């Protein structure tokens, strides 16, 4: 798991919140944010947001790319890509360029993608299928 998290940019993230940390308020950074703790509040990043397997977030998430392996009660707004990995549980709406949902991920909500990217996803699905 640690290796996967590193691939997602945790080691180089500007803001890293460990699994034992409980946060209240809004976290914002121009750089990447990786969170594995509990947060009641919103996350806003000018870069990528990684929500780790132990994370429990109650709030909205905004970033360029958003990757979720933990639990999120809130909306996601990603300008590029959103990835919901195997252990992700997202209860909220997603507005994103592209969306990847792994087998096992739980997503309850609506998804809105940009038209151009939507076409791209469809094309890729056809190739994979």
């Amino acid at each position, binding site marked *: 798991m640690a290796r996967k998290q590193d691939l997602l940019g945790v080691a180089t993230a500007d*803001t890293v*919140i*460990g699994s034992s940390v409980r946060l209240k308020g809004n976290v914002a950074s121009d750089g990447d944010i990786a969170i594995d703790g509990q947060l009641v509040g919103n996350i806003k990043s000018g870069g990528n947001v990684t929500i780790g397997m132990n994370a429990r977030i109650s709030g909205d998430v905004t970033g360029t790319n958003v990757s979720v392996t933990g639990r999120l009660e809130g909306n996601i707004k990603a300008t590029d890509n959103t990835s919901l990995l195997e252990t992700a549980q997202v209860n909220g709406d997603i507005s994103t360029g592209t969306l990847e949902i792994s087998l096992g991920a739980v997503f309850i909500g609506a998804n809105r993608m940009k038209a151009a990217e939507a076409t791209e996803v469809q094309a890729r699905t056809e190739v994979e299928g």
Partner: protein
Amino acid sequence: MYYYVINPAAGKGAINRLQEKLRERLRELGIDGEFAKTTGLGDATKMTKAAIEKGYNTIVVVGGDGTVNEAINGITKENVAVGIIPIGTSNLLAHHMGINSWQQACEVLAARRLASYGLIAAGQKVFLSTLTLGFETDIDKQMETAPDSTVKARVGQFVSAFGQAREYAPLKCHIKVDGRYELESPLFSLTVSNQKFDNPLAENKLVVTIFEKPGRKQLTTYLWGMLKKNQLEEGTTRFKADRVVIETDPQTGMMIDGKVSGRTPIAIRLTDRRVRFITEKQSNF
């Protein structure tokens, strides 16, 4: 005009062995000046203030990190330059500025290349590089009172620190960050560092790093790095801020730029204050 603030206790009285050679070298380089010795805690601050009042525009600290920290707390004017002749037990600030021996320090002083560094406020005091609290500070305090750097002593310190680390009960900490959010975390060790001091091209920010209690395997790496005074970068939590207020339960002591100084709770913030240092490196400002 050069004013030399000498800590006679620094480096186990290192100045007593080299005072004559040092003065002779400074005379040769044409940068001799007034020499004054500290006699106790806080003296370097008072002496620096008094020297600036008298019109000295160059304060040279002959000592270690703790004496440098005291001196910068006495800087009251921006046109004053600070030099360091590193003879202390801990000389991290001088090393960061490319100064590694008293002989080299004399050459650096004569060359007078200046670099400006922003200061961080911690309560009523200011510091340049790093504030630590928690386990690392407790160990540093012990080393400060028994500053033996032989290999045998280092091994002894390591074994002792390992035992203490395993018994160490993490503190509870509560941090308010820029009035935007608050966090609670168990804390083994915490550092607040001046990002711009480490990297002059970086944004002016505090970098707060929290270390949780390491497992047995990680503990060895952690302690060895700590005793060798390597920068410990890999924390479990880290974030940037302009201002933080740190509370711990129970209250704990802090180490500021290598000097034991104050206890939690503490408010730490960026300031507009800058100090010009005479360094080996060219200024990046």
